[in-house]
């Protein structure tokens, strides 16, 4: 009878022993095991991502010729519009460079845009992360800003050989020196603890007391460019309300983030170049 009881308790005992052993394992070993696990898992996830891309490709192939011609026409229009914008940007860049030379300003830090597919999403109340299909192999660096067409996505937290982990701006671990569009005073944006199955939100602190926002007239929150990580004027979200802090010095408020953040398939990593790269 006692023998049978011991056999029944064996799995629990083993689990307890493993947990106890894990507790006493040195941190370096734990870190190595975790990284090793991640690197082993990366090819599987990358392959799954490629398969999904292939699946999308074949599903598009089923479209009729008329639809493809229509899409091709739209693409031509878009390309033409982008081409004009590129030329305008080039003109403005030359003008900025000329003025910078006149004022003897140091060359601004630049970024290299590195587009990357998303291979995995990891959302919870406490952290909101995505895994992208590029890592050290494309020169991605830790802390690099990640953006998409609608604004800021987040910041690279970990870089592995072929993948990188990005903290979304809805994650409490991300803090950005932001500003309200049209107002240069920097305020602090930070991701919030997000409830499950609800739209992601963030919070702003140190909002000047003369800023007024109502849900009916939200204000666009953009990057200030003063923090040294994110370029200026990238959309973070919309402030939907502010209320004075008890000390009366500032206001705090809620930020509504783009729902598209949770459904992205591709993002762009801004890899710092020049002096900024070393910081």
């Amino acid at each position: 009878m006692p023998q049978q009881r011991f056999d029944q308790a064996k799995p629990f005992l083993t689990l307890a022993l493993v947990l106890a052993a894990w507790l006493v394992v040195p941190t370096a070993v734990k870190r190595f095991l975790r990284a090793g696990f991640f690197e082993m898992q990366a090819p599987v996830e990358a392959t799954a991502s490629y398969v999904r891309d292939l699946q999308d490709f074949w599903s598009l192939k089923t479209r009729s010729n008329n639809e493809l011609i229509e899409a091709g026409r739209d693409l031509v229009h878009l390309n033409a519009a982008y081409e004009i914008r590129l030329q305008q940007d080039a003109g403005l860049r030359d003008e900025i460079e000329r003025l910078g030379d006149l004022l003897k300003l140091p060359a601004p830090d630049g970024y290299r845009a590195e587009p990357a597919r998303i291979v995995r999403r990891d959302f919870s109340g406490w952290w909101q992360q995505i895994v992208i299909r590029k890592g050290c192999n494309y020169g991605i660096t830790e802390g690099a800003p990640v953006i998409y067409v609608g604004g800021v996505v987040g910041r690279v937290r970990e870089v592995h050989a072929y993948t990188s982990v990005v903290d979304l701006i809805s994650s409490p671990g991300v803090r950005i020196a932001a500003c309200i569009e049209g107002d240069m005073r920097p305020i602090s944006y930070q991701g919030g603890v997000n409830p499950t199955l609800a739209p992601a939100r963030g919070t702003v602190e140190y909002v000047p007391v003369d800023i007024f926002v109502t849900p009916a007239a939200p204000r666009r929150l953009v990057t200030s460019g003063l923090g040294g990580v994110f370029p200026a004027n990238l959309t973070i979200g919309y402030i939907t309300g502010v209320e004075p802090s008890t000390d009366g010095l500032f206001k705090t408020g809620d930020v509504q983030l783009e729902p598209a953040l949770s459904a992205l398939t591709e993002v762009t990593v801004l890899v710092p170049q020049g002096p900024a790269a070393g910081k």
Partner: protein
Amino acid sequence: MADTVAERSSGLVETHKGYNPRVLFFYFLIAAMLLALTGGLAYRQLASNDLYHEREKTQNQRRILVPGPRGNIYDRDGRLLVSNRPRFAVTLYLDELRKEFRSQYIAIRKAYREADDKNLPTATQMERIARFTVVQRYLDQVNRTLGRHEELDADELNKHFSQQLLLPYLLVDDLKIEEYARLIEQLPVVSPLQVYTSSIRDYPLGSLAAHTLGYVTGNDNIDASDEDFSGSDFARFTDKTTFKMKGTIGREGLEANFDSLLQGETGGAIYRVDPAGYRVNPPLSKHQPVHGRDLHASLDAELQIAAEKVMTETELNSAAVALDVKTGEVLVLASKPDYNLQNFVPHLSHEAAKDISDRGAWINRATTGLYPPGSSFKILTSIAGLRAQTIDPAATVNCPGYLQVGGRQFPCHGGHAHGDMNLAQAIEKSCNVYFYHQGLAMGVDTLAAEARRFGFGSPTSIEVPETKGSLVPDPEWKMRRRDEHWFPGDTANFAIGQGDLLVTPLQMAAFIASFARDETITVPTLEHDPAHPVQHTAPTGLRPEQRAAMLEGMEACTVTGTAKVLSSPFMKIEGLRIAGKTGTAQKQTEKGTINFAWFICFAPIEDPRIAIAVVAEGDIAGEEFAGGRYAVPIAQAILKKWNEKQGRAPAAGVGIATP
């Protein structure tokens, strides 16, 4: 055989026969011991509960007090005069670095042992080195991010560690806005390094009304008086259980007088700590600091700016006071030279303090400056004579340019002979001889009593510090103070506001405001009451025709008299009838005779609303220094701005240029 065994067995069996007294003794002993134990336990748990609870708190709990920001000060139209602005700093929470300190300590000890160093430091020294190294590492991180070259003070660090471990250690203070932005983006969210925000006073109008608004200084002894704050009972314990962030306390002016109103409500948190004093998160309870209440001062920023602009341009020591005639609210309270209140934040430097002292700018001349009022006092002499029936407004006195009193010749204003003068003309031309005669006729006692009836010789009860040294002299005072008799010449001097008579500009403003209302006392106040309660005190006792004669002389003074500059094309205020009186008083100094230029007035005559007193100090001995030249332009600037404001709505919160 069997019987033998049975006998043996029965001999070995222990049987219980009733109770054994020896066992009973032990029963009692054990019961008594248990009772003592239970009693002791009950005593400690129930009777001494508070004592042990207190000891537990003293040993394991620490309270951090954070001062609440002070309230703002606004002018009567809601313009911001004093507010708070955030001050950003980088701080390091030392109590979160315990593991790092320990690791560094072990590393240092190992390094010394491996090096086989004969001069091995003591454990305490190595702990200090470890702390310094770790904190320096964090400071380097901040320096790299900000491009600064800040250095660490080892003594300060040790002092902070031993005395204020739970408070954040200040690494870099007063960050620029770009630096603050850089840090919040580049510092990890969970890091012992954090951007700390505190509030400091902000004076958007710089030196405007500096003496009136006052300033604040640091206060290390902030108090949590709120009973709801669950840590208030910590106040009974030793200082070691409470850590206090630095607060502020009003030291001068409105900041000091309304300190209890402006002072924010102290907040803070109570933490459980381990035996080494390190915090065990999260806090047991928290209480947010609360913003202090706002003060709406009676000052009118626009009028104050107008006055100070002209006062600054004259480059003379001067003071100006303007009162709302009906309510007694102070519209302008200006004193030059003054100081820039922005220099007081975060604290006044030694050089700035010395500069203020050298310029004599600490003194609020409007409330603590003592001056002889000169001819502006003739208004009071007139009232005294009219009430005592020694002055007949229509009767004339011949002015030959001087009056012989006793063995001394007393000159008239400017040394000119005015000829026959009635009361109105005497006021208009400021004829000394007329008032010498009237003063001697009514006598010193009547004059002194009348001055006291109008509040001279006593503080006005305004909310900012004022002198108690104002003086209405009389024979008794002279005998007591100087052991001398009072002479008729003293009365003659007194009648024209000279001699030992000393008043403040605020008293003169209150006096002329009272006269404007045909009353005797005005209590000036710096607190704005939107209900505008009208002051009512004892009437002057003048008959209408007597008052009319005085007003005729005072208006003529501003049109054709000693203040006729007010009617010049450059200074005339269209549509505003002003009743005024100039004055020039002298004071003997080491440099010689210094003149003081006075002007008191109120307007409009038909419905007095504003009363003004201005004094300007001469800076060159013997220089001709008339009230019309130096004091009138300051009053004119106030009146002009006041007149402009009538009929238009106040533009609250609008930015206005400072002088």
